[in-house]
């Protein structure tokens, strides 16, 4: 049966995050011919609504208010609850990002609903919407559904493909009047620390460094390779603990869980806690001078060698072949 699906989109620094489009594609599948409505909140989001339609939303609801300039669970919670109560969707999808992780449980609690977090795939089984999600940091998977009532799920970036952008698509854009009151948490300041523009959880390619990079400067050749490939730089906990880089780069069981198309591990031994965060990447390359390193057991391709020799050569070679194209 056709369903009505609400997709809560997210922008970052005035740009829609790609996972918003992936969530719309997921919404389309769940809607099964029904309607997909995208909602976006912020101080000024009018410029973003067209793209939501081009990527498949049938209708867009925007909520603009100066109190929505930065995300707060109270502010955005009021807006999205108001929208949910007026359109009464069968399913609600959010991105599994900082925002989605923070607000989805609040909405679920308010609606007395089941929430499936961090879904990587969706299938329909009759009337049931079945989600696949990693458990034990990707060491296993489970399939799960909501038994009754509205289904809420957060969608992990990079796993469900967005639809092709189609600029000929049209859809109505509605403005939701919102009055934001009683913000119990106030964001005083946001300190931007992310170095490159590429976000780890959404990156298609990740160059990760471990204790083998030996110093903060040792990350430079990795960053150069990342720049050539439009990749993000990540790290093992070993590198973070040794202060070679910020903890925000950590990948693994107690860091980020990533699933890029290509993961290049440089000077990382491949401890089980690190593998938990990256072993579901599509293609893994290991560069390590120890042929016995465990990372080679999960790598599709390996080079046994000194990363300070191999990585710069790799950068040169990619530069060469990508230029001639």
């Amino acid at each position, binding site marked *: 049966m056709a369903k009505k699906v609400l997709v809560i989109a997210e922008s970052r620094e005035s740009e829609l995050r790609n996972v918003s489009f992936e969530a719309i594609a997921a919404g389309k599948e769940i809607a099964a011919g029904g309607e997909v409505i995208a909602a976006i909140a912020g101080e000024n989001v009018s410029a973003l609504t067209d793209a939501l339609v081009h990527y498949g939303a049938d209708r867009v609801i925007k909520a603009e208010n100066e109190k929505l300039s930065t995300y707060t669970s109270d502010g955005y919670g009021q807006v999205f609850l108001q929208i949910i109560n007026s359109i009464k969707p069968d399913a609600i999808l959010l991105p599994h990002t900082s925002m989605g992780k923070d607000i989805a449980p609040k909405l679920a609690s308010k609606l007395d609903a089941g929430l499936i977090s961090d879904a990587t795939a969706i299938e329909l089984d009759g009337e049931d919407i079945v989600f696949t999600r990693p458990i034990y940091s990707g060491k296993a*998977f489970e399939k799960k559904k909501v038994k009754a009532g509205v289904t809420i799920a957060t969608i992990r970036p990079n796993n469900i493909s967005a639809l092709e952008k189609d600029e000929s698509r049209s859809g109505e854009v509605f403005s939701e009047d919102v009055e934001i009151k009683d913000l119990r948490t106030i964001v005083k300041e946001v300190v931007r620390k992310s170095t490159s523009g590429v976000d780890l959880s959404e990156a298609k390619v990740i160059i990760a460094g471990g204790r083998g990079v030996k110093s903060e400067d040792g990350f430079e050749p990795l960053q150069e390779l990342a720049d050539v490939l439009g990749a993000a730089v990540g790290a093992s906990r070993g590198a973070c603990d040794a202060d070679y880089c910020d903890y925000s780069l950590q990948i693994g069981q107690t860091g980020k869980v990533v699933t890029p198309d290509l993961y290049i591990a440089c000077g990382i031994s491949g401890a*089980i806690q690190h593998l938990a965060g990256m072993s579901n990447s599509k*293609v893994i390359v290991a560069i390590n001078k120890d042929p016995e390193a465990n990372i080679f057991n999960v790598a599709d391709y390996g*080079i046994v060698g000194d990363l300070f020799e191999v990585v710069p050569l790799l950068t040169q*070679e990619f530069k060469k072949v990508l230029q001639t194209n």
Partner: protein
Amino acid sequence: MNIFVIMKRTFDTEEKIVIENGKISEEGVEFIINPYDEYAIEEAIQLRDDHGGEVTVVSIGSEEVEKELRTALAMGADKAVLINNEELEDSDQYTTTALLAAYFGDKEYDIILGGNVSNDNSTGQIGPRLAEKIGIPYVTTITKLDIDGSTATIERDVEGDVEIVEAQLPLLVTAQQGLNEPRYPSLPGIMKAKKKPLEEIDYDELDVEDDEIEAKTETIERYLPPKKEAGKVLDGEVDDQVQELVKLLRQEAKVI
């Protein structure tokens, strides 16, 4: 200050996962305090040392959780509470939240701390769900916490950026890595912990109806990811290996 920590017992991060009869096998598995909850316990102890008051660690689970609760007491918490749910067949984040909300129903609290996510189910739902249910504000993935009177000034990790947030107590916060360095229990700490109060409550003693704790979600299947085939370790001169790798990534794997 009345300080509470919600804590979960989870698999040691070294453990491999075995599935038996559709369930995750616990046979021979080492358990630990969920690593993120350890940060929460440490922060709670530091808050108490700075502001006075009492730290109570609350966990839901089987009798075996007593071991991890004793560890929390040995670290320095004052009291522990185990809400025993062994008899409860079917449970999800909705259930857990309802039980915790019922427990906190008649308590006075200034702050509740928890981990931002558990390393087994990794939903990260319990903190925000609970705060919403008991009507207090929450701040997730915090890396710094300062309390002055009834005002909390917090740094939170937002995908690498740092947000500085202000909120009033009572408040719920969830810990991110980097919040502190959890201490190891000391020998005197372990001795003292044996005499500290550990209260056990059966879940059905809480003021909550059966239909209020019925799980909203259902697990249909659990499985292990397909085993990876051994990869290709390249050989030859390093220049050739690099050229070969780039070719393979473009032509065989087609990821670049």
